[in-house]
């Protein structure tokens, strides 16, 4: 599905990820955990192709195709979606207008409108947010829901959710978590997270731990519990 071959990534002169080797499989849920500044978000940006994140060595291979140098919009077309940790506001552009442009020629506008309305209802997104500029006047939880809505409409095969549980209240977390669980079939889901709490609603098949830009441990879901109880320090001593 998606393979990271000895991937190292820098921003400016600063190296952030070092020699990551990993293969993501279809129909699996991965939790990527690690302390602040360990490179979790960088991993998401690198896979999605942010131009400021430079791959200094190694490759990103998606469905047997080297996409290391591919433009971000091409990666999106191939089925990679990154849900942002801090979704941006786009003045004067509704979520419908954005998605219509993203899917230009591929979807009937009326059908798209209905789909957005349906998903918004399922995610309990207020109607008025759909008619406003994207993310304008939206709470943290609402912004994350709007990211998820876009993801579902674009129907990616590889879905990266960068801290979709941060800045979200308990009710919204429950809705978001259960929704991800509902749509996970047929996709690879990568949950970048600090906390265990979202893992209550969606069980990861694997937990990856990043420390200082290195992939230090891969385990099953009980690894998340161990981290919660003993912290990342315990892992380091185990290494």
């Amino acid at each position, binding site marked *: 599905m998606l393979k990271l071959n000895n991937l190292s990534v820098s921003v400016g002169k600063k190296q952030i990820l070092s020699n990551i080797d990993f293969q993501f499989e279809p129909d699996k849920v991965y939790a990527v955990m690690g302390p602040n500044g360990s490179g979790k978000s960088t991993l998401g940006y690198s896979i999605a192709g942010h131009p400021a994140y430079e791959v200094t060595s190694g490759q990103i291979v998606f469905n047997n195709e080297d996409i290391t140098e591919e433009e971000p919009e091409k990666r999106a077309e191939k089925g990679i979606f990154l849900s942002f940790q801090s979704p941006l506001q786009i*003045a004067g552009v509704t979520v419908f207008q954005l998605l219509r*442009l*993203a899917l230009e020629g591929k979807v009937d506008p009326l059908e798209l409108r209905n789909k957005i309305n349906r998903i918004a209802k399922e995610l309990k997104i207020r109607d008025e947010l759909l008619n406003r500029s994207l993310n304008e006047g939206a709470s943290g939880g609402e912004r994350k829901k709007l990211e998820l809505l876009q993801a579902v409409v674009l129907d990616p095969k590889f879905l990266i959710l960068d801290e979709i549980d941060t800045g979200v209240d308990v009710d919204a977390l429950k809705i978001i978590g259960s929704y991800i669980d509902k749509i996970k079939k047929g996709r690879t889901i990568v949950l970048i997270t600090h906390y265990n709490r979202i893992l209550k609603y969606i069980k990861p098949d694997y937990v990856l731990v990043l420390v200082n830009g290195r992939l230090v441990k891969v385990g099953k879901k009980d690894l998340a519990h161990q981290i919660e109880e003993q912290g990342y320090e315990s892992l380091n001593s185990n290494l």
Partner: protein
Amino acid sequence: MSDTQQEDIKFDYKYGFSVPTKYVYKADKGLSDEVVKKISYYKNEPAWMRDFRLKSLSVFNSKAMPSWGPDLSEIDFESITYYAKPIDNQVRSWEDLPDEIKQTYDKIGVPKAERDFLAGVSAQFDSEVVYENMRKEIAKLGVIFCDMDTAVKKYPKIVKKYFGKLIPPADNKFAALNSAVWSGGSFVYVPKGVKVPMPLQAYFRINAESFGQFERTLIIAEEGSFVHYVEGCTAPIYTTSSLHAAVVEIFVHPKARVRYTTVQNWSSNVYNLVTKRSRVEESAVMEWVDCNIGSKVTMKYPSCYLVGEYARGEVLSIAYANENQIQDTGAKMMHLAANTKSRVVSKSISRQGGRCSYRGLVNVSPGAYNSSVFVSCDALLLDEKSRTDTYPYMKIREQQGVEIQHEATVERIGEEKLFYLASRGIDKQSAEGLLVQGFVEPVAKEIPLEYAVELNRLLKVEMAGSVG
């Protein structure tokens, strides 16, 4: 209009197009008493108008060029043809138009729906209004909507009362020029209490090389009336510079409301120098919605003279400057009575080294207490080469209860926004287009749908047409 025709425009327009036109009369190049007299003669005008023209010409000759703003030194007044009469008589219906003129309109894309649903198309081809069609119900309401030349002959009493009263020839050099050689434009008279139920529309276009267009529009809205006037402008591209110097005068009587919408796309060699002014009386409302795309230099500052208490004035504008283009636009709000209110929302986009300036004047006179002023100008820069400036002048000479708000922002399209949209599968060019569209949305939503669609299309073509 069919989709294929739409496609044609897109590509044709970038290179300009010109349809050979038969002229009944075309004046010699250059400006003289003789030329002005001839224009008046061919128009069969009354003596008072001919005299007005001649007086204006001497004002023009004595006036200096503006000492501020963009460089206009390349305009050669001697190489311009000031008048051309394409066909002999006005025609009544669309079908009667000569084919070549119809073709031109097709290429501009006068929306078909307009003919079916809207009041009347008074489309100006060169300097004569050759097509005019007014819906019967509007005439029944007592509304007069005709070209300015006809109005001079048919309604001399009203025209004499208002023509040149708000913008006298001496106002500025280009107003003087227009007053001397004006041709075409619209005359709108709305009687007391009449609310015109549909927008009145006119298309303007320059079609002869180095041929200046000097239309003249006069709108009078009597007490308690309402009218929305819409103009769309487009011109083909030629090798020498064209000059467009229009004058628009609007009289808004007590409790009346006038909205004047412009969506224009002059080709990149046109000097577009327009004087637009309104006189707004007690509890009346004037709204200018002004979208300027294209031209070489545009200088335009729609103004509201708020002369009656509780008068309200509004200018909403979009300016788009591409490579080698200067948009020097803004607004002028004169608070001359108490409890008056003005609002200016200006959005400008500069790209490929284009330059947009906001130039605004707000004047609150002594005695204009409890007046409120809101000015917001936002500039969007698409690259490092482009430029934006703001020149907001405020003369506040009354303090009591006066509220002033001024906001200005400059924004660059940043990597983060482009990446955000890219991560949804949107390429850079489309993303920039979307961000521009979003940026102008607060003004664009005020434009009638057909024109808003056209505006979006123009912006898209402009964004795609990167020359450099």
